[in-house]
């Protein structure tokens, strides 16, 4: 009972943190379950994938209704993230867990550095993962986007997938990188927004807000494709998934409603410290200590 409640509380904390800072839950759930509760890393990744789908599906619906997610671009790119997810799901069971822990430690360090840099600029990093912040039909109210960005919606009259002709020519590159995002998602239990958002924003010239919403939409297919591989391989534990997924859902809903009242710069600083500590612990696991 106590362990279950602790898992629920951990899920709530991960969901709320992720929501307030615009990060996907996977980055927090995997270390929480593997370092905090002693689950094997691959099992933690399987649980995390389920949690990531929950928050993605709940908020993607809101983004679609607000026309902030580019459905057509998202569907084309998720074809490639899906392919990557199948590849990642297949090789995840061949790789040494210590190697996965090492890669995860590097990812945590990268996100910590990105957040610290963004903190100095006073903005949320564009590398933010899938936006869990609209779970529960509430709007992300963080002042992390330029005024124009916040108002941007998807244009019904735009050309090929809504991209300018010079940007549309970069679609093959975007497709190739999307495969990589899918592999990373399947191996590490993350949404992959950390790759997809900058890809769409910088390479394809999609406004940041729409990139984030579109990435969020794509996470569902990416994570569910790899989660199916995990499920059929026995890599998802229903008992561990239950309280964690419910906690993450509650936490993400709370986070989206508390956004106005929280001191985000302080939270970001705290989060950077948590990420660095977690990266250290993951690195120790990678080194077998």
């Amino acid at each position, binding site marked *: 009972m106590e362990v279950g409640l602790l898992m629920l509380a951990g899920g709530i904390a991960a969901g709320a943190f992720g929501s307030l800072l615009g990060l996907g839950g996977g980055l927090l759930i995997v270390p929480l379950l593997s370092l905090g509760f002693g689950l094997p890393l691959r099992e933690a990744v399987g649980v995390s994938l389920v949690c990531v789908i929950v928050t993605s599906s709940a908020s993607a619906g809101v983004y679609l209704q607000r026309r902030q997610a580019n459905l057509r671009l998202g569907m084309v790119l998720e074809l490639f993230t899906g392919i990557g997810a199948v590849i990642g799901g297949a090789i995840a069971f061949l790789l040494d867990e210590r190697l996965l822990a090492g890669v995860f430690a590097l990812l945590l360090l990268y996100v910590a550095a990105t957040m610290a840099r963004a903190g100095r600029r006073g903005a949320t990093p564009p590398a933010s993962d899938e936006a869990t912040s609209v779970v529960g039909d509430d709007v992300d109210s963080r002042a992390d986007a330029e005024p124009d960005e916040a108002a941007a919606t998807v244009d019904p009259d735009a050309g090929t997938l809504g991209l300018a002709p010079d940007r549309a020519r970069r679609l093959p590159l975007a497709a190739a990188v999307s495969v990589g995002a899918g592999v990373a998602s399947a191996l590490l239990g993350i949404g992959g927004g950390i790759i997809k958002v900058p890809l769409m924003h910088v390479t394809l010239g999609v406004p940041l807000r729409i990139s984030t919403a579109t990435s969020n939409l794509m996470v569902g*297919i990416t994570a569910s494709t790899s989660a199916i591989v995990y499920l059929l391989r026995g890599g998802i534990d229903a*008992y561990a998934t239950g309280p964690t997924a419910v906690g993450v859902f509650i936490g993400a809903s709370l986070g989206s409603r508390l956004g106005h009242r929280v001191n985000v710069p302080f939270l970001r600083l705290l989060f950077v410290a948590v990420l660095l500590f977690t990266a250290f612990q993951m690195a120790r696991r990678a080194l077998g200590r």
Partner: protein
Amino acid sequence: MGLETQGGSGASGRGSPGRPAGPVRPADQSTPASLEVALAHVLAVGTYASIALVGIGSVLLLAGGASPLDGGPPLQAASVVPDLFALRPAGFLWLGIVGILATPAIRVIRAGLGFWRRGERGLALVALLVLAVIALGVLIGVLIGVVAG
């Protein structure tokens, strides 16, 4: 492949470097495209129904005094319904988890049908390919399971 939009959606905006020029449209929530609204509905219903099942399963699990670290039973399709009627947590948890995993695929099916009806055959084909990739994931999962014994 005919991916130009026909009354569909593309991204536009201005105000930061590295994006196509074009006017930013104020957020217009009164007339969202019907397909987007339908997909939002699919995602909302799928997610809330699935998380409700997982929630019930979690309450039953914790009320029964079991630990989530005990290791739950593997998914067996034949035992889900009996577990539900017997109020065993595994039935609710597995049904909810499968619902969570299926919701994005149902969204793609619905989107594919919507594109087909609108005559956007290229995007309908993309939806079909996405479903094929998911099916490939199922096949790979089964094969890995068989090989691993």
